[in-house]
């Protein structure tokens, strides 16, 4: 197997998951608690990557963030290099692409937390932030973990977007799924088989973990 591609894919999935936890939790919390009418629009935007072909996202990222556009120049000023064909570019694309796979389980878990416990914390004088970290998150953590694991796995299997904006640069944008595509096209079925079997096994294990997390009743925070 292409170990460089494996390392790259794992690193990309890890960073994407971290970014999605940091960005996705506040967003999911807002979605779970807001009464704003904007909620439905935001929910739809978050869910878009589920139904959109990855090529749509890839095409708009390539055209919209190319070095000659304003957004592309902004990206370049921020990172010191253009968006396409770079690891940072893939990271941004992956965060967008895997957004629903993290935010939807996050929001479901957060909205499943008993309002009364949250309100009790407020009446006892806990700040909103303290309430979130000491009451809401501990009660919702299995959903948050499931979302993070799903985002990780989804990023590991990302193909269409990377094909469109990656450019197949070894060590930079040649992820495992791109390496597999190239192995198949080049008729190297033995190597393709190793890569495909790894991705299959990894995906299966991740789904087993997600289902275990979603079904098992975890010990209550107050019982420990």
């Amino acid at each position, binding site marked *: 197997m292409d170990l460089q591609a494996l390392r790259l894919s794992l690193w990309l999935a890890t960073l994407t998951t971290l970014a999605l936890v940091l960005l996705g939790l506040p967003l999911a919390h807002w979605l779970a608690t807001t009464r704003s009418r904007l909620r439905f629009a935001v929910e739809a935007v978050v869910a878009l990557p589920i139904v959109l072909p990855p090529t749509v996202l890839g095409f708009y990222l*390539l*055209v919209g963030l*190319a*070095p*000659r*556009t304003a957004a*592309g120049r902004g990206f370049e000023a921020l990172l010191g*290099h*253009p*968006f*396409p*064909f770079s690891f940072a570019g893939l990271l941004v694309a992956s965060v967008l692409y895997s957004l629903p796979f993290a935010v939807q389980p996050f929001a479901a878990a957060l909205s499943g937390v008993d309002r009364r416990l949250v309100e009790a914390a407020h009446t006892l004088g806990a700040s909103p932030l303290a309430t979130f970290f000491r009451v809401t998150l501990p009660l919702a953590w299995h959903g948050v973990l499931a979302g993070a694991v799903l985002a990780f796995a989804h990023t590991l299997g990302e193909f269409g977007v990377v*094909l469109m*904006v990656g*450019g*197949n*640069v070894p060590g930079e944008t040649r992820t495992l799924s791109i390496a597999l*595509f*190239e192995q*198949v*096209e*080049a*008729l190297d079925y033995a190597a393709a088989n190793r890569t495909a079997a790894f991705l299959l096994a990894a995906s299966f294990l991740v789904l087993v973990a997600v289902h275990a997390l979603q079904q098992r009743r975890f010990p209550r925070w107050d019982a420990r």
Partner: protein
Amino acid sequence: MRYLMLLLAVLAGPARAVAERQPLAVAAAANLKPALDELVQAFQASRPEATVRVTYGASGAFFAQIRSGAPLDLFFSADREYPQKLVEAGLAQGEVVYAIGRLAVWVPARSRLDLERRGLAALADPAVRKVALANPALAPYGRAAEAALRAAGVLDAVRPKLVLGTSVAQAAQFALTGAADAALLPRSLASAPELAAAGRSVPVPDALSAPIEQSAVVLGAAHAPALARDLLAFVRGAEGRRILARHGYALP
């Protein structure tokens, strides 16, 4: 039950119509897109009953698909190696060279790169950050481009800048969107209207890249082998040669 029958009848209608008038399925190397679109149009003008459906992509990818039994009639490759291998494997016959391709460097109109004077060495310039070419593992023009960079003595300097398209078409698209600063493309593609309008191209000297002989085969699995042979004969005939020459190909 009656509704089910009705539904089946509705669904079967179009399916039958398709089976009766199945188009000639052609797979062609991406470098041929501008020329073959025109060739097929001219062919259909003389044969109105024929419908031709062309899919463009990397020759290596089509080779793999044909070996796995893709239902195709005719295959225009970007080299001779893939068609010859198909003939050897008993999957095709009558391998013939239909065109001889050459390379060009294409840069967007705003590029100030002095390709005319410096040639391929200009690609080592720090102003060039990404150079697009077709994946050498999959596309003959990608291999030719890599060989030309090596022959010009700049491959090591340019290698970190290389971005690989799955075919010459994707390499062209990388440069056309401005994502890459230059692309090594077949001359036929570099002079296609979309690219000619958005930039300029400079031919890669023949000393650096040997002319690329492109051959075609009629596939053993063809359902309309006669029509496939007719199209191939048209491409190699007087009108076909005229069109190919206009798109920057040399002729066998």
